[in-house]
């Protein structure tokens, strides 16, 4: 009994470097060997709503895809961007890329180039990337009133009036759907406040896990239709899209978020175990102090 108590006391008072090392291993091993851990992905109702909203769009519809994330949140949100693009391209929906963050330009360039080649989509006809403009909420209000007051050229420097798919697009009311890939400010909340809610344009979002509590009130009020919450949300959406692509007999490279969920799962279990050990140690040492 005393030996067991000593082991628990040791486990509950570890140096934080050992904790870091064990957490590091718990993330690294599943990433290197994903086949060792095969976990089923269960789509949440919120992810299902996002999927259904996009799935109910028709061929030729216009979707505004806004990139509001940077390199630090890329592992969480970029897989969502890829999955969304695959879904939109598979349904032959026209995609209009915007960015409210300067880093969003790089993220959008990477996402478009990765998926457009795979689905053989043509720039200017199937998708266009208008890029970043400074101004935060002012950019959103500009897009809501008249895109051409803000954008005269696209990201490559081509005048937007020379781009075929920009012909009938004046403002946000010409879009059938808006999707915001958001990691902070400005992001989904600003799209709700300044454009989508006033103009009644359906909006969905994919965001980092930490932002979910901030955005959930809008989801509850149906101002945002569904939410992809962090990497689990990305993995759930990937699994839904992959099932849909199989039904449509389209082959595409599998997404990365699903493989990363094993790592996240193991890491969470390790953290929970450390919390439990810490509490056991706390009780044992408290009891000893009382006796002493």
């Amino acid at each position, binding site marked *: 009994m005393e030996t067991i108590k000593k082991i628990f006391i040791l486990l509950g008072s570890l140096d934080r470097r050992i904790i870091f090392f064990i957490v590091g291993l718990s993330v690294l091993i599943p990433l290197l060997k994903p086949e060792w851990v095969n*976990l089923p992905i269960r789509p949440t109702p919120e992810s299902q709503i996002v999927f259904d909203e996009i799935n109910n769009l028709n061929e030729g519809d216009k979707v505004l895809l806004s990139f509001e994330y940077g390199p630090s949140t890329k*592992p969480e949100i970029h897989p969502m961007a890829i999955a969304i693009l695959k879904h939109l391209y598979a349904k032959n929906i026209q995609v209009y890329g915007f960015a409210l963050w300067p880093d969003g330009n*790089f993220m959008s360039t990477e996402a478009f*180039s990765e998926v457009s080649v795979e689905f053989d989509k043509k720039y200017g006809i199937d998708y266009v990337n208008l890029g970043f403009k400074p*101004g935060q909420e002012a950019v959103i209000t500009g897009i809501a009133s008249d895109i051409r007051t803000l954008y005269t050229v696209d990201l490559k420097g081509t005048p937007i009036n020379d781009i075929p798919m920009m012909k009938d697009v004046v403002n946000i009311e010409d879009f059938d759907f808006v999707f915001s890939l958001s990691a902070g400010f400005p992001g989904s909340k600003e799209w709700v406040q300044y454009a989508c809610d006033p103009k009644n344009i359906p909006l969905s979002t994919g965001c980092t896990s930490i932002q979910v509590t901030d955005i959930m*009130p809008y989801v509850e009020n149906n101002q945002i239709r569904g939410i992809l919450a962090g990497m689990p949300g990305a993995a759930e959406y990937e699994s839904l899209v992959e099932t849909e692509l199989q039904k449509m007999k389209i082959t595409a490279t599998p997404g990365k978020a699903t493989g990363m969920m*094993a790592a996240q799962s193991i890491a*969470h*279990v390790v*953290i929970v175990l450390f919390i439990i050990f810490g509490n056991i140690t706390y009780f044992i040492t408290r009891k000893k102090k009382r006796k002493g």
Partner: protein
Amino acid sequence: MFFKRQIPLLIVIGVGLLTLFGRFINNEAVRGFVSNDATQWFDIIASFAIFLGALNMLKLQLIKIIKKQKNWQYSILAVGGFAFAIFAGFFYRGANYITISDIQEGELTSVSGIIAEELNESNPFNIETKLLDSKDAYEIDKIFMTEGNAKIFMEKLTPYVDTITLNSKPWGAHVQTKGSLFYWMFINTITPLGATMFALLAFFVASASYRAFRIRNFEATLLLVAGIILMLGRVPIGNLIPWWVVSIMVMFGIGAIAAPFIKKRKVLLGIVGGGIIIFIIAGTLMGWNQTPPAFLSIPIIQDWIFAFPAMAGSRALMIGIALGIVATSFRIIIGLDKSVLGG
């Protein structure tokens, strides 16, 4: 004093009141200023102000290097990184591309093969199709960081193509162009560094939870239990936790709540242990092994915690914070709180 105190105060009050009540005025010019111009003015000022910060940072780092203060070697990295970013953004485009036209007769396959090899494309037929479809000059879909590399590639095509030109992406667009020097710097240094710093959070969450989540009182216990359920419920592994494990956790929870009221430890142990056994037997008899109930599923409990208690708490906090912002802004707008002006 008049310029340092009174004039800034007048500007704060004037612009503040205009922005606050401007949305209610039925005048396009006023509403346009409030919605668009005011924020853009701030962005313009902030953009010019970047020079102040950059110069300050450079000054401090250079002083460290010149005076060889402690860890001055790291300052060389800071200054070097700064200089490289300025060079790649403002002085060196590094976004060269080649356009070809007037391909010699019978050489289409050779040209598409050379281009396919350069682009690492397995099927040169795709390139051939694009060459045939292009009406004017065909832009080869590769960006060369240096003119030298571009010219080496041009020499391979010159025997088969009559018109071949080397171009550069326009200034500004070169920053976003995949393959340019700035883009290379962003993807290969800034992105991994940013992701690394963000990844530190995982380790710090582990050490913070390990240290802070202790069953000290009722609220701390509630925080601990909610935290564990949320951590397990958010990931796929939560689906694998069977109903009887959750029922054991529920019984332990009941035991923890009842503990202050039951002095005799053996009685408490009996209640918790007996409760677990009864729960598991009853559940097995009710067929919960095949169809477990929703209230004993970690992901569903997690969804409930997210949708109700967490949401209620966060909404209350949001309202409080919003009111705090309103009151602070009001004090600043009416000129009551002058501390931000330096006094």
